[in-house]
């Protein structure tokens, strides 16, 4: 790993740890491997969103050419959001692609991703299914996003969560993995019959 990359990551590590956001436990950064190449970020779901109260883990890979090329960031925690792939956790965010600038830091990356959670851009979606739901049936999107946040990321439970959990459980009873169950149900707007059909077809 290039010495500049190491130097930068060390400095940015410090920047995140000493930042006011880290103090309010909004963001967090940890090392996975000792070589600083593989990091794990953590962001809190922003208030007044379906993600409030949830904690999302981000998988961060630092390329050798950092900071001239952007870090590779994806969600390790499952999330239901139009700009994030519900399957792979890939993020659609311009600063992680062609709008990256060498002056940006891991702190700005974490904060930008947190901001993305607060304001989705369904016209530039990563996850077409979620985007469609976000646009056509916003209430179901909201409910689903909140359920995913609760189910996978320790978000606050909602009034309808018991009901949804019951649906997931009924699918699990058929021998379906809970993740597949949640995904299929979310995909088909919580219509259990269609979801089951899609899995077994």
């Amino acid at each position: 790993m290039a010495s500049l990359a190491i130097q930068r990551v060390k400095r940015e590590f410090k920047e995140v740890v000493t930042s006011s956001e880290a103090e309010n436990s909004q963001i967090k950064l940890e090392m996975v491997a000792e070589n600083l190449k593989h990091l794990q970020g953590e962001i809190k779901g922003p208030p007044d969103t379906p993600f409030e109260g949830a904690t999302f883990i981000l998988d961060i890979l630092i390329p050798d050419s950092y900071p001239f090329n952007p870090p590779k960031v994806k969600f390790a925690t499952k999330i239901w959001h139009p700009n994030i792939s519900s399957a792979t956790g890939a993020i659609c965010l311009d600063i992680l692609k062609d709008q990256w600038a060498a002056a940006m830091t891991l702190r700005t990356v974490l904060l930008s991703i947190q901001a993305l959670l607060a304001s989705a851009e369904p016209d530039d979606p990563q996850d077409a299914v979620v985007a469609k739901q976000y646009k056509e049936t916003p209430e179901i999107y909201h409910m689903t996003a909140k359920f995913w946040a609760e189910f996978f990321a320790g978000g606050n439970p909602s009034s309808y969560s018991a009901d949804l959990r019951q649906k997931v459980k009924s699918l699990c009873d058929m021998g379906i993995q809970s993740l597949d169950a949640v995904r299929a149900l979310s995909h088909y707007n919580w219509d259990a019959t269609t979801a089951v059909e899609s899995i077994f077809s």
Partner: protein
Amino acid sequence: MPVIWLYYTNKESGGRIPVMVEWDWNVFKLKQAITSQLGRVPNKLIFLGKEIDNKTKLRDLHMIEFSTLYCVLATNTMPRVNNTKLRVYGSLSPSLPSRGYDIQMPMSAGPLDPSGIHVELEGEYYVPMTSHWDKGSEGVFDFSFRRYVADSDTVSEVSEHIYEHLGEFSLHTSQISYETMKSKRRYFSVFCRDVCNTITRGKLLVRCWNCKSNHFTLSCDPSCWNDVTGDVITGSCVSCKCEGIRAEFYFNCINHPQQESIATPLKQVKMNERSVECIICAESPDRLMVFECTSLHATCLPCFTEYVRVNLVSRLFRYESSVGYSLGCPAGCPNSLITDAEHFRVVGDELYERLHKFAAEEFVLAEGGVLCPAVGCGEGVIPGTKDRLITCEACCHMFCRKCMDRAHFGVCERSLSVRGGVAGVNLKGSAIRSSWRFGGDGRDRSEESQDWKESSNIKSCPGCNAPVERDGGCSHITCSVGVCQLEWCWLCEKEWNLECREDHWFD
């Protein structure tokens, strides 16, 4: 003792003599040595087109053995006062408040003509009788004055040692500039092409625009880049036959000043006088690369080098007709493209060559031209607008402009959105990613290109045929070739559309 060359001239004659010097000498001491050697009094010593004062130490001129100095000899042995002013601080009498006075002294004459020195002080002025300048460079000197009172015709002669009154008599201004020069000397940055092949300290030199002689005195010092690059500064050529009045500035690398080498000035590399931090690594180096954006973002030179290298090998420079193929501020500011390509030499000869290759390709494509797709060729051709079949003038390969394939009859089914087609696989010396090193050696790479075709993470851009490597991410690809910039779908290999977005964005 080291030896320097002294070119001397006056109205009648000129010549060159070697002078033995010590680097610790100041210019005054050098003048004494010249006087004893030539039997003539040097009037002015000229270094870099500028008269140097007596206090300057030879060491601070960064002279090395066999450096050259120019010397104008006085027409008579006793030079007259010239009006160089030095500010003297301290009071001339204990009863007067300590403040600054102008002391007029002939800088070049030194002790040879003490009558040139006089001090004016509230209606009284002092003219020195004798002086001892041996501590000259320290700014403390000892001389006695004859005191004149201006408002009466009576001249009372007071022979006194001023410096006894003062205790300390210092040449304030020259001392300060002397010290600051020592601690933080400003200098130009140049790229030394011939020898060092890196960014070095530059020496600004001046010569006559007419006869190219270094025997030239400036009417005023250059104070900005415009002065150096434009033809605005005048002066006079001291060479016997030449009547040149315009100065021509040029640069030399400080590491080998005697060698005739090309050292191109780098305008955007500046002294870091306010301890600005590099926006990439946060170090605060002596020199910075300053971008021309409104925020004046700056990076250190190692970060700049890496920034250029990474963006060059990924072909992420931008082509703008007014500037050419260039790179902007690393913070992404608008209107910050580097205008002088000399700055890009930091990446080394091989990559710099590649930069020119890319730039030429971008230019040809921007002008509506095409690049020959033949193996090992890549020649740019700018054909007439209607021609479909094109023959490359360099290799005689005939190809179809629409599909960039071998020439064929009939209507062409395939059409690239950018007509030129960066036929990356076949393109000589081109690389889209650093790991793909196309030799540029004319070697047949059809085997290599076969490997690429088989590799699932490499495809050709449907807009310009440039090979694209996908290393993770979604299927929405934006081509980085300057004139292309096509957004396309990795799966369909077609222009990005709504269906791709809704159906397989991240497959």
